[in-house]
């Protein structure tokens, strides 16, 4: 029996971590994810978990300690946001290259500068090529569910990659919503125990981790990492199916909302999907065939599946909550359009950079995107595919 509760996104993440009961948590506070280590250290202080909590002096050390802990043969978790993730950046790559299934709760926030504490996806986008499995969550429920599935995916022998579960800072992390929690015992059984094949604390088989890896081997090691990322797709689907059996909550690589018969659609991630669904419902009442494709699995990027799911549309808008500052569009836009191109899908597609630094994204703005798409369908032309949504005109 699921337990009905009301929790914020951060509470949901901390609750998932409590139920997972990892061996080590190393974290450093940063808004808006600070509450996660706060709640978690309370669990530690009260003996609710078996975890060794390492209150490190920086995020760089948080990820370094997670690497040390995971390599030693334990389950290690952390939580961070924005500049915290930026400071970890060097270690983010090392964690994945050492094939350590560390799990992170990333509460998305704008990366400086200038300093801003509110939500966008620039932190996650900065590590999109680092070899981490990246799951995005629309709300507290998904943040919780994704974390419960995280270790099963990351620790799978065909994957062995670190994994981050993203949720929107403040919008999700600090909003209290209804949530269905699973019973502790059921979670424990689902997550299972960590049994690494090789680990530092195995005195019967001492190992060396993190070599100088030169021209003769690094290429092959990188190719193995890439292969693990490819394998992750099926593992995510398998684990999600098993999760559905336990909870009744269904997860795929992405969610299609009224996409089947849609003519125009938005592709986006995290909380904006909620606003978009609301707008779609209103438009549907007016007879507009609008739909949504909400990315859950951003890495590995399900290119073929996304392209196929969008192939019947007349126009698509990809919403990026991070600007790549590259003069051609956001990261999600690049991923979606290149997937469409390589899979022979030709649908007029437009990109909107939106919600930067926590700029509110209203239903009116989403409506304007759909009406732009209707215009594109009418004219068959995409003028300026790299656009802004919600930017004050005078500052354009």
């Amino acid at each position: 029996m699921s337990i009905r509760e009301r929790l914020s996104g951060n509470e949901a993440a901390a609750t998932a971590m409590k139920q997972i009961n990892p061996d080590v948590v190393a974290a450093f506070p940063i808004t808006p994810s600070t509450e996660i280590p706060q709640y978690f250290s309370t669990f530690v202080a009260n003996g609710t978990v078996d975890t060794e909590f390492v209150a490190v002096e920086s995020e760089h050390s948080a990820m370094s300690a997670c690497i040390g802990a995971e390599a030693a043969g334990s389950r290690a978790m952390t939580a961070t946001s924005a500049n915290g993730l930026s400071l970890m950046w060097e270690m983010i790559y090392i964690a994945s290259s050492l094939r350590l299934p560390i799990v992170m709760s990333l509460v998305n926030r704008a990366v400086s500068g200038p300093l801003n504490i509110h939500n966008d996806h620039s932190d996650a986008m900065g590590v999109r090529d680092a070899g981490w499995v990246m799951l995005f969550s629309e709300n507290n429920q998904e943040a919780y569910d994704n974390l419960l599935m995280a270790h099963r995916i990351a620790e799978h022998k065909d994957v062995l990659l670190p994994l981050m579960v993203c949720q929107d800072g403040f919008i999700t992390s600090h909003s209290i919503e209804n949530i269905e929690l699973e019973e502790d015992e059921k979670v424990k059984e689902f997550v299972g125990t960590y049994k690494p094949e090789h680990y530092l604390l195995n005195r019967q088989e001492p190992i060396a981790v993190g070599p100088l890896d030169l021209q003769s081997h690094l290429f092959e090691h990188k190719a193995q990492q890439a292969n693990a990322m490819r394998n992750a797709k099926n593992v995510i689907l398998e684990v999600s199916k098993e999760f559905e059996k336990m909870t009744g909550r269904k997860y795929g690589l992405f969610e299609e909302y009224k996409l089947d018969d849609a003519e125009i659609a938005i592709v986006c991630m995290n909380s904006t999907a909620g606003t978009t669904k609301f707008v779609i419902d209103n438009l549907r009442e007016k007879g507009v065939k609008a739909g949504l494709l909400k990315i859950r699995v951003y890495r590995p990027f399900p290119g073929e599946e996304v392209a196929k799911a969008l192939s019947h549309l007349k126009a698509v808008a990809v919403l990026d909550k991070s600007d790549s500052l590259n003069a051609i569009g956001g990261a999600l836009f690049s991923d979606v359009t290149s997937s469409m191109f390589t899979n022979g899908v030709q649908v007029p597609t437009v990109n909107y950079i939106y919600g930067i630094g926590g700029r509110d994204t209203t239903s009116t703005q989403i409506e304007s995107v759909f009406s732009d798409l209707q215009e594109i369908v009418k004219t068959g032309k995409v003028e300026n595919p790299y656009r802004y949504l919600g930017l004050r005109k005078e500052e354009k």
Partner: protein
Amino acid sequence: MAYNMKKVIAETPSRFTEGHRMCAGCGAPVVARMVMRAVKTEDHAVVACATGCMEVSTFIYPYTAWTDSFIHTAFECAGATLSGAEAAYKSLKRQGKLPEDEHTKFIAFGGDGGTYDIGIQSLSGAMERGHDMVYVCYDNGAYMNTGIQRSSATPKFADTTTSPAGKVIPGKMQSRKDLTQIMVGHHLPYVAQTIAVDNFKDLYEKSEKAIYTEGACFLNVLSPCPRGWGYPTDMLMEINKLAVETCYWPLYEVTNGVYKINYKPRNKRPIEDFLKPQKRFKHMFKPGNEWMIEEFQKEVDTRWQELLDLEAMTNKGE
């Protein structure tokens, strides 16, 4: 039990094997081998290494010179990496997931770059949190791995590739940071400064103490570099000896805040004896540069006196 080098070497096989690629005449492998010898045969060790000469010369895929478990992640985070491994050990042990009667010791190695400079935050954090580990700094007084650039451990006036002895500026113009004192300021159970001299007695005994004292311990080991210092490779042990005899590198330990100077030379040798065989100080011996040697000597004397005072102060009433 009195230290006996022959016995130690005969009874404890080296846990750091031959075949590594450190330079001839380098002090670091001598340090690593001796520190690791101090781990009891029945104990396992997890070694963490900061990026640097030692790491890139001892673990080139697919070969390793380490017979214990070993981890290297990056330059500035040996302290944090090892704290994670130690935290895992504590956690798994508490949960009964590791045998109670088997012990693992945690030892980090970093050069002065990875320890005094880029890694000082990670080191300070690990020490403050009190992880049961030893951090060993093999201090060769510059960033040797990248080609002899100055560090905060580089002595004043030394000629390095980023503090070259030029026509206007005669080498590094700043004094050496005293990391050992910074570590003493962390109020650790055991902090020591040592070097490989006299059959490695001081180095071995301090390693043993540091490894088997519960909590975070720190060893600062002067570790000459023939390329960076410019001495003949067969002169390593003599350079070490001169560092101690001139009081450039005093041997001392601080146990729970109490100082003990382990060796006080009866006749302190002039600093020229230590500087002269090293090419990095060559310009100090040019006519007209006598003031540099004088200044260097003065600093050595001041620091030595400070140490004597600290020893006297912390042993009052005993």
